[in-house]
């Protein structure tokens, strides 16, 4: 997946709005492979990299189960704890993760996620349609030298 401006900014804007509207602590977009795309909210102690990878594993595992019973996928997952909750929604090639506590309600989160999903889907459609366009910035990968690569392993 290749992300550029202005879509990156747009994703963050929708995430921020969703966070406020749903009274959530964190709203987080990751791709289905577990790579973080963008996050909004109070991530102070939250290990977002681990969360992204586990959420992707979680969705992959439930997706595998879905296929075993003849479903394409289970588009939403909801995990409710004593105080903290996680709601995950599949949006095309991305996952939207909402972390919320007992100040918020699952019903409201679901509703707001549904509304935001359409906006996210639209932005991702733009991201996809531009995936193969390259800009000047990108020829820079063609110029990566062996020394650049070696320097990473010093």
């Amino acid at each position, binding site marked *: 997946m290749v*992300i550029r401006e202005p879509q990156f900014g747009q994703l963050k804007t929708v995430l921020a709005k969703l966070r406020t509207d749903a009274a959530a602590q964190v709203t987080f977009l990751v791709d289905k492979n577990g790579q973080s795309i963008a996050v909004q909210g109070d991530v102070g102690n939250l290990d977002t990299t681990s969360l992204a*990878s586990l959420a992707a594993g979680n969705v992959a595992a439930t997706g*595998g189960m879905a296929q075993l019973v003849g479903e394409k996928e289970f588009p939403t997952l909801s995990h409710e704890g004593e105080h903290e909750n996680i709601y995950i929604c599949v949006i095309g090639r991305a996952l939207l993760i909402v972390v919320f506590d007992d100040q918020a309600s699952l019903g409201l989160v679901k509703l707001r996620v549904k509304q935001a999903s359409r906006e996210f889907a639209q932005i991702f459609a733009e991201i996809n349609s531009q995936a193969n366009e390259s800009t000047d910035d990108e020829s820079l990968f063609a*110029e*990566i030298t062996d020394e650049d*690569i070696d320097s*990473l392993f010093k």
Partner: protein
Amino acid sequence: MTFINYASREINCKIVYYGPGLCGKTTNLQYIYDSTAPTSKGKLISLATETDRTLFFDFMPLELGTVRGFKTRFHLYTVPGQVFYDASRKLILKGVDGVVFVADSQEERMDANIESLYNLEENLQAHGHDLMKLPYVLQLNKRDLPTAIPAADLAAELQRKGEPVHEAVAATGVGVFDTLKSVAKQVLTELRKS
């Protein structure tokens, strides 16, 4: 599939350690984890059984530095090697950028190596990947064991396409970083081509 964010200037790549049960995949990650500075790594997550066999995957993010102003991160995963976890193995290969095949050098594990390699090709195909085109290295692990068969014989049996071959003793770290570098280089070189 490499993840590139031009807005935040990040490149993330996914590397998967594959191979038969008990060949030392988790041990490779554990060694990398233990010998990396805290600033360049995240948590090592192991979804394992009570007997420390990988149940779903191990995961660790590793930040290597910047290339041309882009923060370069590798997400390292291992698969569960036990035959009956095939569905999980397949899931983890999704979106892979490079594979390390960890072979167990012991003679009695030869069949398991071959079966696992065959399984890798099959599962890659299920995702539309072709081992022949993917960044790929072969690690011959457990070189310290007396029952290890000669490296040349193992390579002759398991090498698929002239990929780099690294002898290793993952338990003590021998060859672990050489293996990682070797696959990471191929992944970055691939980026240059695209």
